[in-house]
């Protein structure tokens, strides 16, 4: 049991470290280090622009999408090398946020199901950051039950014509391409009538509307499709096989480990170490200590769980669905920590401005944003189902719509 690299891993790390040292945009280091709760705001620059510049540099140095094959813009690196790269890239990895969906989900799907021409045309430009991709799966009536989606694609000659609406699409407003799942046959049960496509987001009939979120920010979009034409050559997988194609996409999402999720624990520890309560420092208060210690133990448990996963990768094993615990634990913890920090602030906790009493409102922001952590990318409930079914081997839910043709499934509760 040790935390050491193998000689090959150490050599790889050394190469990566030297490259980052020589090429990273160091002027952004302080600002990137501060944005620790997953929300990156640069004072003077646009994250997409700065991100594109960093991604391009990485691509030229052969460090972009490094686990992809060389012919598609990667480096042919192993999964453990990718983790080492992420560790060495450090805070600059936050700049890759606009490309993560493309790299983690869209790219691998094109790689698995696209034609050779499509792979050579699209993947290198995705890797270099020249073209950004988004993922068009969720719909207003199909979130956790994504197979219940309604967006229709109808065959007209060599093309498909798409009508419908997607929602929660991160980055749609700056994306060049999108990975789209649509219903091609409503007369068969829901999982069987789906087909996967990719499309140019500038196609006529595509309309992107930003969504104003409960925390007041705008990071997601609605995307409307009105008679959007997609050539059949942009279909991924067979007609009616969209569901199994989407499972490849989602499996790859789980593979993108190594980027640790924010838990709020370091911020809370610092806050309690400095906060003066009526009887002294918060961190000397027994009730505060008890909660803080439980959170700290959970957070270190997550850290060492990811180390175990990395060790498995290092031995050539593939991480499984047990990785679902990271988001499940940290999402709830963020919300609990935010609530408790505000409780300690008392009456001033209600303020959301740059007030000294609330340490510039960081926990207030955390409180308002944390609900999305428990929903996006699989709700807490779906993650528990995944653990129960795929790790513990419990039976799947009884699905009343499983064998019913899609167009016979009820759409209203009452």
């Amino acid at each position, binding site marked *: 049991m040790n935390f050491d690299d193998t000689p090959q891993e150490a050599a790889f790390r050394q190469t990566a470290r030297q490259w980052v040292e020589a090429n990273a945009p160091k002027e952004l280091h302080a600002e990137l280090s501060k944005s620790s709760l997953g929300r990156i705001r640069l004072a003077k620059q646009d994250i997409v622009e700065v991100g594109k510049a960093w991604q391009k540099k990485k691509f030229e140095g052969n460090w972009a999408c490094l686990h992809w094959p060389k012919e598609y813009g990667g480096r042919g690196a192993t999964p453990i090398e990718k983790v080492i790269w992420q560790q060495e890239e450090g805070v600059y990895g936050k700049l890759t946020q606009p490309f993560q969906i493309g790299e983690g989900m869209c790219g691998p799907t094109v790689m698995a199901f696209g034609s050779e021409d499509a792979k050579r045309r699209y993947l290198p430009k995705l890797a270099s950051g020249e073209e950004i991709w988004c993922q068009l799966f969720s719909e207003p009536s199909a979130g956790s039950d994504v197979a219940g989606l309604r967006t229709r694609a109808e065959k007209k000659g060599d093309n498909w014509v798409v009508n419908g609406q997607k929602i929660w699409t991160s980055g749609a407003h700056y994306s060049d391409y999108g990975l789209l799942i649509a219903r091609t046959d409503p007369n068969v049960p829901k999982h069987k009538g789906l087909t996967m496509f990719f499309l140019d987001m500038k196609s006529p009939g595509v309309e992107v509307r930003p969504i104003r979120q409960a925390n007041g920010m705008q990071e997601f979009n609605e995307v409307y499709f009105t008679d959007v034409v997609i050539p059949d050559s942009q279909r991924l997988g067979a007609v009616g096989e969209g569901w199994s194609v989407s499972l490849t996409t989602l499996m790859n999402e789980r593979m993108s480990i190594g980027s640790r999720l924010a838990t709020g624990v370091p911020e809370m520890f610092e806050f309690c170490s400095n906060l003066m309560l009526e009887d002294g420092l918060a961190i000397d208060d027994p009730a505060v200590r008890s909660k803080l210690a439980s959170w700290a133990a959970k957070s*270190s448990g997550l850290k060492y769980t990811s180390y175990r996963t990395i*060790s498995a990768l290092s031995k050539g094993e593939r991480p499984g669905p047990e990785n679902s615990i990271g988001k499940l634990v940290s999402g709830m913890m963020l919300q609990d920590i935010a609530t408790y920090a505000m409780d300690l602030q008392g009456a001033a906790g209600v303020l959301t401005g740059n007030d000294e009493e609330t340490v510039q409102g960081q926990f207030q922001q955390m409180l308002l944003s944390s609900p999305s952590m428990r929903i996006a990318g699989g709700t807490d409930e779906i993650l528990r189902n995944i*653990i*129960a079914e795929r790790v513990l081997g419990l*039976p799947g839910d009884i699905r009343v719509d499983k064998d019913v043709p899609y167009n016979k499934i009820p759409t209203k509760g009452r």
Partner: protein
Amino acid sequence: MNFDFSDDQKQLRDQARKFLTEKCSPKAVRVVLDGKAPYDKELWKGLAEMGFLGVAIPEEFGGAGAGHLELCVIAEEMGRANAPVPFSSTVYLAAEALLIAGSDAQKKKWLPAIASGEAIGTLALFEGKGNPAPKNVKLTAANGVLNGVKKPVADGAIADFAVVAARTGSSGRDGDISLFLVDLKAGGVEVKSLTNLDPTRGQAEISFKACKAEPLGAAGEGWSILTQMLDRAAVLCAFEQVGGSDRALEMGRDYALDRIAFGRQIGSFQAVKHMLADMYVSATLARSNSYYGAWALSTNAAELPEAAAAARISATQAFQHCAKNNIQVHGGMGFTWEFDCHMYYRRANAMALGLGSLSYWEDQLIDRMRKKNAA
């Protein structure tokens, strides 16, 4: 990075599991639970023969001279099997105390006897309510004799010797405490068995009346040795708790697959699935923290105090959570004496108090994190 046990260590775990499945079935545990015997003597003998009691004791003192990672994998299996033997008292506390602070003569006297299964040892620290703290040690030592009462002492009624924490000063500092080694069979003690939460592991009251004792470690060093002992034992106990958590989770999962209600397996209801998924999450966090503790223990790393506290908290919470919800999954049957669920529930809650309560270790973790942040 290789943050995992080696193939040899995993093989040792398999060997321990096979041995315990055979010799320490729930039926065997029930013999101690329901009967008069305070522990399973045959099992204890078998553990000695397998070399498990002395796995981390150096060869020159009659042990296998393997190491603490090997002891961790065995500990996990002991917890899984809910073994009714004084393993933690003897191996995690008494043997570790001797290894940390014992003189050559003390080590020669007791360590081979531990490894061979002839001697049972324990730690006599607590005096009634309260957590480990110098101010809670009232028993006095003067001129080589002890006077006072220790309660509860785990496995106290069957122990051959005890490491006893005694007051040798009154300055109000840690240096007031010294450790002593007492041969409990040599007179000067009165031992009374106490009923407790987990009848498969005894608890006793030991009264020391002008009892002869020899110092263990330097005078005034008692608290510092004890702190090290508790940290080391916290990691080892965490592995027992992880083993117990996993077993309780498995029992719940298996029952959820077998039991039919409302015309379907109860494991197909989300209310039950989610409860089991949450148990899995707790057990996984505890396992990962315990692995870190094992690394720190086996390498004597400076990180041990923090790692031990995190492992202890995480494993205590996980075992309590899994044992409690295992009963819930079983419904009414889980509340019967006949089903094994209560044995894990009892063990989980008894273990949560043995080395100091959860709130004590939460306090420790915060102190240790602050110390690290300040450094």
